[in-house]
Structure formats: structure tokens, C-alpha cells
């Protein structure tokens, strides 16, 4: 089943008193965050990472882009951790730099061009090969390709879906909890919960 939710729901709720002050503050900041120049990554690495993230989580609406790579750069700049890493992996920042190098290396070996110059289908082919540990290149001898892909995807996804616009896309309004939830059973909706509008794309 394809669901499709109306735009604007979370933004409208943020204007109301159905959201607590700390919640509004966190989400509004995220909504208004501007994209900065990278600090941790070089400009080349950063634009490669952007190209990769565009395939992992395609964003069709160019006017309302969610900045995934900026979030990753910021975390690595601040040297923040999520509390653990796979022992087989190098430190997060090194893993990112090495993995990006590997992606370009695989693209060169398979398509004789850097990742950013090949077609979307070819890009997906490379990424699938990385995910399944089948991508060619010396870099992947040093770095567990599947783990790198898993970590990258998890961080991209968590950055993307923490954004109010992405939450509108999936019809999530759980942040509007001030009135409490009374209608919680199957098929029971409160007025502030959006319904799926038809079958979507």
C-alpha cells in the first residue's frame, strides 16, 4: 500500500500550543537551520557525500531540501559519537573519509569515471555493490564495506527523518502531545492526526 500525507501539518502544529516549548524549540531550530560550508570534510569529499546521500534518500522537492550531509559534517566536527562503534571499523571520521574514497575508486574501476559523473543507475549499482560487499577496489580490503554502508545509511536516515518536513511526509505528528492522546486504538485518530490522501505516487 502506498500512503501519501499532506504537506504543512507539522509546521502548522508548531504554531499551536499543542506542542511543548522545548519541543517547538528543537524542531523550529532544525527547520530553520541553514546549510554551512563543511568543516570536517574537504569540499570534494562533501560534494561526493551529497551525491551519495541523494541516491540513498532521493529528494525531489529542490526548494525544500533537507540537509543531511551538513548534519554529518557537524557531528564529526564536534567529534560526537553515538556511544559505540563496530570494533572492525576505524574511528567514525576515518571510516567516512575512507569509505568515500572507496566509492570513487569503485566507480573508476567499473565505469572509468568518478562517482559524481556517472548516471543515477550506475551510481545505484555502485552503492548496491558496496552494501553487499561486492564493490571492487583496494579500499574495501581495509574497510568493511557492508558495515560502512550500514553506518552511513543509518546516520543519513536518522538525520533525514528527524526533520519536520520528512515527518510531514510520513504523516507523523507525535510531537503534538500537549493535549494527551485519548484515541489510541486501531483506526482511532485525533483531529490533529492527518489522514493519508489517496494512494500517492
Amino acid at each position, binding site marked *: 500500500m502506498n500512503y501519501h500525507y499532506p504537506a504543512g501539518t507539522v509546521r502548522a502544529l508548531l504554531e499551536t500550543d499543542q506542542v511543548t516549548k522545548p519541543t517547538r524549540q528543537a524542531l523550529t531550530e532544525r527547520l530553520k537551520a541553514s546549510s554551512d560550508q563543511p568543516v570536517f570534510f574537504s569540499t570534494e569529499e562533501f560534494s561526493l557525500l551529497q551525491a551519495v546521500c541523494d541516491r540513498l*534518500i532521493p529528494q525531489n522537492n529542490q526548494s525544500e531540501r533537507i540537509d543531511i550531509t551538513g548534519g554529518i559534517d557537524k557531528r564529526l566536527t564536534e567529534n560526537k559519537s553515538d*556511544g559505540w562503534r563496530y570494533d572492525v571499523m576505524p574511528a567514525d571520521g576515518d571510516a567516512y573519509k575512507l569509505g568515500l574514497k572507496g566509492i570513487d575508486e569503485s566507480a573508476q574501476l567499473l565505469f572509468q569515471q568518478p562517482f559524481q559523473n556517472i548516471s543515477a543507475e550506475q551510481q545505484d549499482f555502485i552503492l548496491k555493490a558496496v552494501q553487499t560487499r561486492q564493490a571492487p577496489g583496494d579500499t574495501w580490503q581495509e574497510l568493511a564495506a557492508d558495515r560502512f554502508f550500514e553506518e552511513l545509511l543509518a546516520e543519513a536516515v*536518522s538525520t533525514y527523518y528527524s526533520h519536520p518536513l520528512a515527518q510531514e511526509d510520513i504523516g507523523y505528528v507525535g510531537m503534538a502531545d500537549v493535549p494527551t492522546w485519548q484515541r*489510541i486504538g486501531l*483506526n482511532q*485518530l485525533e483531529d490533529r492526526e492527518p489522514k493519508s490522501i489517496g494512494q500517492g505516487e
Partner: protein
Amino acid sequence: MQTYSTTEIVDAIVIGTGAGGAPLLARLARAGLKVVALEAGKHWNPITDFATDEKEQEKLFWTDERLSAGNDPLPFGSNNSGTGVGGSTLHYTAYTPRAQPDDFQLRTDFGVGEDWPLGFDQIEPYYNEIEQFLGISGPSPYPWGPARKQKYALGPLPVNGAGQLMERGCKELGIKTSPAANAALSAGYYQEGVGHRPACANRGFCQAGCNIGAKASMDVTYIPLAVHFGAEIRSESFVTQLIKDSSGKISEVVYIQNGEEKRQRCRYVFLCAGTVETARLLLLNGLGNSSGQVGRNVMAHPGLQIWGEFDEDVRPYKGIPGAIISEDTHRPANADFAGGYLLQSIGVMPLTYMTQMARGRGLWGEELKQAARAYNHVAGINILGDCLPYAHNYLELSDEKDIRGLPKPRIYFTNGENEKRMTAHANKIMRDIWAAAGAKNVWAFPRNAHVIGTCRMGVNPDTAVVNPDGQSFDIPNLYISDNSTFPSALSVNPALTIMALALRTADRFLEQHK
């Protein structure tokens, strides 16, 4: 709040204020002891500090990096480690089932694992006391285990969509279900020394912190009680060293507060820093390890989750996440494994679901976005099963330093044959339940939850770190009270039993030091 100076010799220092530290702290304070809690994390004010937003609430997780090794590396951070006054209870889901009597004697019954050096009868009175004090909501009678001496403090919480679906599927298959016991209030509740706490708002956000105090995390229950009885809570105080005097007892605890090294003198120390940090502190300081068992026997409950999409609107962010339980699989007939597990329905917050989907299903591109749009229609069930202690699962100090300049812990974890068989058994049952309930696009997320072990309790100083009272065999004025002392993992969520053991340790200590 009462405060003590660092030059004063306080009766006891409690390191860590989670499920193992907070109840004990309150008990010692009530007895009139001068007690100071040293807690690495912050003391939050949930109303002003907690947002209904998972990213913002990452501040509740212990994020000093740990290295996860073995064939089934354990994720830490959001998966099982909290920090702050209240410890991991700040973000526990609030499931509070009791262990059953046979959980404490796995070796007697199956010839594998370990028996506990104390039985259910010694824990039960504390279960009763804690359930009343925290205001646990649950059904009376409760369908499994020995008859309860007392009803749950409050009736069960309302059942959400995931819970209804589990009831539907289980009914079809003849599996008995019941509303679960949860440490969240189904009605307003008042306790002397704590004050009034409001009923749960059904906001499904327990794992990212309760902003109204309906969930019985330690910061809104045993901590205020401890303060009421004169305990001092020193937050943002990271303990680095335990200093022994010439008699071999610990006389001083060294900690870092606001970048400054401080020392507190004391008569007794209660180490309650959780499975990983308790073992790490002992190893760093070379203490309490004549048995060689510190860091050994790491266990983590098999916690396989089965997710499915339903035609109905579920909105998995509403209601207490774990509304429905079944313990019919506590000792399944004809099982090819030792012990057993319980089944729980699960609601889920969006980021948790999306990142699990990324890791577990490996979805990306348009496929991911489409699956994400089904979020409002997903529901899960998971198990929580016993895990055997193995020599191949342990914690060690690595050569890598963390942001505090201390060696990162490396934790090896690989499920054994018993956990694999149990998980396979559960995979089939849960898929059957979800099929019977009408699920589509069913997928499994394998995981292990709760880190347990590393400082096992026992009666033999050669094979255990602490005795059944939680007292170190090597250092008489050092006690441990947290998830590290469990000799076996038990087939239930651990927090209630950790609290029960904490009160028992405090009572045994007070009896011996009258």
C-alpha cells in the same frame, strides 16, 4: 537538598543513580546515613528540558564510545545505556514484569547457565514494595507465575493499536495474552516524600524520556525520596578512581566535576555505574578482581523484533509502547533450548523505526521512502529471553582512549546455540501471530537488549566478584548494586529485579551495620 563537604567522611558514596543506585541511596538515607551520590550525567528537569523529539533527547544516552566486537556486536548508546540522574531508567520503556521462581535456578532445571545464590522468596517482598512505591500499572490477577500477595498499585494502562493486533493474532493461535505491567501511571499517584505524579498522557515516548513524570524513572521516584531523607545528589561528577588506604579499604573516591578533580572521603562505597562502567572502573583501578571474573560473563537478552504493516491505522507513537504481554513461552513445551522468553507488543517512535529499518532491511532510495510512509500502519512484537553466560562473551579495556582520556571498553558478544535456537523458535511464533493478525511486509530485526553480567554474584570467591549481599569478596567496604551482578540473565526485563536487589543489598548492609 542537604550537602556534605568533601573533607567530611561521609558514611557512604553511591556511584551512579540508575535502577541499582537510586533505590539503595534512598534506603541508606532513610536509615539516617550520610550519603552522597556521584552521578556522571546531568540532573534534568523533564518539564523544561525534555522535548518530544528523539534527536534532541539523544542527550540521555551514554555516548563515550565503546567498541563492539564478536559475531553479534552489541549496539550501545540508544540501545542500552543512559546517563543522567536516574541512569538508564530515564529512557527505559517501563516494562516491569517480575522474574518467575524458576528463572533463578536455570542450572538445576536445565544443567546449563547458573543458579542464583538466592531465590525468588528473597526477592518477592521487594517486588511488592517497589510495585506499590513506583505505582506500577498492571492487571490483577496476573495470569503467570505464583499468585501475587498484593494487587498492582494501579489498573492496567489503555491498550494501543499494536497491543490490539497482538491480542487478535494470539487469540487466533490460542496464545494467552494480558495487559502488561508497566512502570507508568494509569492514574495520578501520590507518595510521601515524592509528591504527586500525573497519569500517563499516552505519548509513547518513554524511550526518549517522560516529560510529565508519569513514568517511574528514578529521577521522579527514588531520587526525590532519597533527597527527602537527606541524601546529596552530586550530578556531573564522573568517578575515575577509588583509593584504598593501608587497611585495604576504600577511603576516598576521586571524581571530575566541571573539569576539576575532586575527592570525597567515605566509609563505604556502593558501585552502581551499570554493567559496562562498573566493570570498567574496577579494571581501570585494578580492584576487586582476585577471582579474575570482572568483565566476564557478559549477557544480553535475545530481543528479536518482528514488524509488519497493517491495513488499519496504528499510529505506533501513541500509548504505552509495551501494552500487551504473553508469558506462555516462559517454558515452551518441546523446546530445544534451555529457559524461555516472553512476548511483548511494541509501539515505536519514528526515528527508532526508520534507523532499524535502514540497518535491518537495508532499504534505501525510493523503496525506503515508500516503506517509511507506511510508518503509521506498522506494529511490532518482540521477545525478551534468557541468555546464558559464556566464556567467549566478555569486556576488556582496549588500547584506544575515549574523549575523557580513559581506555575504551571493548565488549565481545556472540549468541550461543541456546540463544539461536530460542530466537528461531520465537521467530516462527511471532510470524504466525502477525500473519494471523493480518500483517503484510513482515520483517525481522534481530537484536540483543540489556547488557548484563561482568561482576557476577555467588558464594564462591574464586568464581564470583561479590557475595549474595553485593559485597566485594576482596574489599569489605565495597558493594556493587546494578545489572552487573546478575549470575544469569533471567527471562524478563531487568529493571524491577535490579531495584529489588538494590533494596535487598541496602537492607542486608544496614542489618550488619546496626
